[in-house]
């Protein structure tokens, strides 16, 4: 199998190929590099996508990923905890982020709910599947409808990587809400803060709103946040912006980030009934 052969496949064949490859069904074509690394099975597909001209292969791949995600929702329901299923879903979620198509968001949301329910029943998940599904959902959401979902997860989750990803999802869903809860994220000793703040700076809400929200933090928390920004690799300009806009004495009231009274988070939230269909 090479890039050109894969690019020439129709949607159905591509869907079948994807299903078999991501479930590690032998023979794998091409074989995975397991000698010096554990090559993710979707790597070959991502590299094929990067070399594909036009949109034809991308569109076919979106359909193939969607059909795989749909099939997996009802596939072998007794296999919770099965590492093949978890790895397959993690790969599909990773591919969904690469494809960046909103149509995959609804299916990703259904998987996220199923995994959250599975965790709530104290059935441990294998590997990193929940993180990858949440990452895909955070990237593919197209409105603020999932804000309660993210906030609930951020406040109730025990895994720091899930809390970090939930805060990221919250920031992409409702940046102001995320900034109101910034102190909780900064105080969290388990979250990998440089990774989280890097995404807040580079994506949503950006350094200025982040710095303005930080102006309400204690000096110790601001210093911790500044250190995380620095360790994340931010430029001196970004750090300068943070210093300028996070200093409570320097911030003009007119530019102050509005911070309403703290709300009772995690209580009384109603989960969205459904991730509503996305308008074409």
């Amino acid at each position, binding site marked *: 199998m090479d890039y050109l052969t894969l690019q020439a496949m129709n949607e159905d064949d591509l869907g079948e190929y994807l299903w078999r490859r991501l479930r590690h069904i032998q023979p794998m074509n091409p*074989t995975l*590099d*397991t*000698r*010096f*690394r*554990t*090559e*993710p099975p979707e*790597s070959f597909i991502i*590299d094929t996508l990067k070399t594909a001209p036009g949109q034809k292969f991308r569109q076919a791949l979106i359909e193939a990923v969607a059909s795989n995600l749909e099939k997996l929702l009802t596939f072998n329901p007794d296999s919770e905890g099965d*590492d093949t299923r978890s790895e397959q879903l*993690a790969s599909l979620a*990773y591919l969904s*982020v690469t494809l960046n198509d909103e149509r995959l968001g609804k299916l990703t949301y259904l998987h996220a709910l199923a995994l959250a329910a599975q965790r709530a029943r104290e059935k441990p998940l*294998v*590997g*990193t599947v929940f*993180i*990858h599904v949440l*990452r895909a959902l*955070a990237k593919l959401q197209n409105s603020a409808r999932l804000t309660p979902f993210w906030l609930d997860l951020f406040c109730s989750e025990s895994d*720091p*990587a899930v809390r*970090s*990803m939930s805060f*990221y999802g919250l920031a992409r869903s409702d940046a102001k809400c995320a900034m109101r809860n910034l102190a909780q994220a900064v105080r969290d000793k388990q*979250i*990998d803060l*440089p*990774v*989280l703040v*890097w*995404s807040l700076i*580079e994506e949503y809400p950006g350094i200025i709103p982040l710095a303005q929200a930080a102006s309400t933090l204690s000096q110790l928390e601001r210093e911790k946040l500044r250190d995380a920004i620095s*360790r*994340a*690799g931010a*430029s001196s300009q970004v750090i300068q912006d943070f210093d300028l806009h996070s200093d409570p004495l320097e911030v003009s009231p007119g530019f102050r980030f509005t911070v309403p009274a703290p709300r009772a988070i995690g209580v009384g939230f109603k989960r969205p009934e459904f991730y509503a269909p996305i308008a074409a």
Partner: protein
Amino acid sequence: MAYANWLSEFEKSTSGAEQAQCWNLKNEPRIDAPLNSFKEGIGKRFEDEIKNGNVGLKAACDAIKQAMVELTEPHCSQLGLLPFVRPDSFKEILISHLPARDLLRYAPTGPFDEDNPPATIHFTSPFKSPYNFPRARFIWLTFPTPDMSMTDDPTLIVKELGLAHIVNGGFLFRFELSVKGMNLFVPTCLDAALYEAWAPPPSGSPWGMTRHLETGHHCRPEVLTNSMDHSSVRPVATLVSPPGSRVRIGSATIDFMIGRA
């Protein structure tokens, strides 16, 4: 005899990677008996392929591929045959590298993209643990020497370490592991699963030596540590890039056979 038949077919390959695998098989003087046993295994697989109707070079290639897969099994008895004897001045903190995609895919600590990662990332799980990096017996480690410090140029480090499998234009991360009190090994061609970018070190070298991707020169020291010895460690990975910049791994003109006389 079966091995000789296999070899005469496999040597017909024009692929640089397969020629280098063959070269590694023929130029590993340190483990005679286990290597002969491995060669017999290849010969047996080759005979089976022929019996099953496969022919010629394809049968030879399929036979060696199967044999190499066996070498990636963590419990393979042909791995870790050369214990590393530490010199007096040996530093117990060693270094390994991995691409951003693998780090994000198998140990995601939070939200980041392989195309725009932060400069510092904490592992959420041990490197090469059973669920996250299955089937990996060893972690490959290097270390700076008085003659050669670690460089911040990701392209240069990939070339010098012979990391042909991660020349992809992505970002490279580096992390440290303490090996104090742990068994270390000098890699053999079997530990390397005949990796085409690898070569045995010069005679008398106390450790393994990496092979430069473009020149074939021996470059940096390398030793192996058991992955399971680090199952409770959560390393911190840092971006390999000159200070104040975010440099991707550049391309390399790889010649697996250059310098192999």
